[in-house]
């Protein structure tokens, strides 16, 4: 069952530095969308973001009020 073609042999692929940075930015964006409740943004902006993403926060199972 093992693949013989070199293209499908399982070696780790090189992940460039910019890709790690991009992944970090992605996780930060995820934080803003799902968790930010006033730790970084002003209270009113955080509240607006919270209300805007409200349904998804509940649906994604992220703690919400």
């Amino acid at each position, binding site marked *: 069952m093992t693949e013989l073609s070199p293209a499908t042999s399982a070696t780790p692929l090189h*992940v460039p530095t910019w890709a790690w940075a991009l992944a970090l930015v992605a996780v930060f964006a995820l934080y803003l969308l799902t968790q930010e*409740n006033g730790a970084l943004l002003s209270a009113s902006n955080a509240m607006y973001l919270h209300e805007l993403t409200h*349904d998804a926060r509940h649906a994604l199972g992220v703690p919400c009020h």
Partner: protein
Amino acid sequence: MEFPALLKRGATAGAAGGFSAALVMWLVVEPVIRRALAVEEARSGAHHHQEEPLVSRTVQVWGGAVTALVVGVIFGVVFTVAFARLRSRLPASTELGRSLVLAAIGFGVLTLLPALHIPANPPGIGEPATVNQRALIYVLTILLGLLGVGAVLAADRFLRGVMTDPVRVSLDVLVGALWVIALLMFVPESPDKVPADVPADLLWEFRLASLVQLAAMWLVVGVVFGLLVDGRSRRTRRVARSTA
């Protein structure tokens, strides 16, 4: 395959997963949210309510759908990096198989584990005063879950060559199971109590609907990424070889 090409496929798979999640949310989760909001409205005087909502319900439904879509793309990007790094450790013989295994791990650690420990709640349950504490428990659960994956991988590497494959895989499973049990027992629980006016079936249906939405996202991400990486890689390589 070079990383940018892989990332393009990952983002595409993420968008497809996010779209599926948004669709499931609209069809399955939103009706339950509406029922929960009715319960919340019926509660008179118990909670302070803003006279004028900051964001209308219509905008919240659309905002939620767009959020689900964007979250899908974010998961697609992170999925790609994880896939590239963990490719050699994922127990499958094809790219589609590896992609599905990674999606299953993602579902288990990032969705099922927090769902078991600090499950999703519809509106009208979370205590605003404890939201930061609950967020910490949620993040801690996920981080310890990821650490658990590392522990299983480390155990697997340690046992490789020491014992036969079936014994090694069984011990891997045991390490993972013990890790999850310890995590569920020792990570603090949500301080919130479910109010008495929230029907048990509403709570159960919401949690199930939330799981269905996230399962749809992971499944679509795993399948689409796997198909894109599996099929196209050979074609682009052939083209590259003929033009080289």
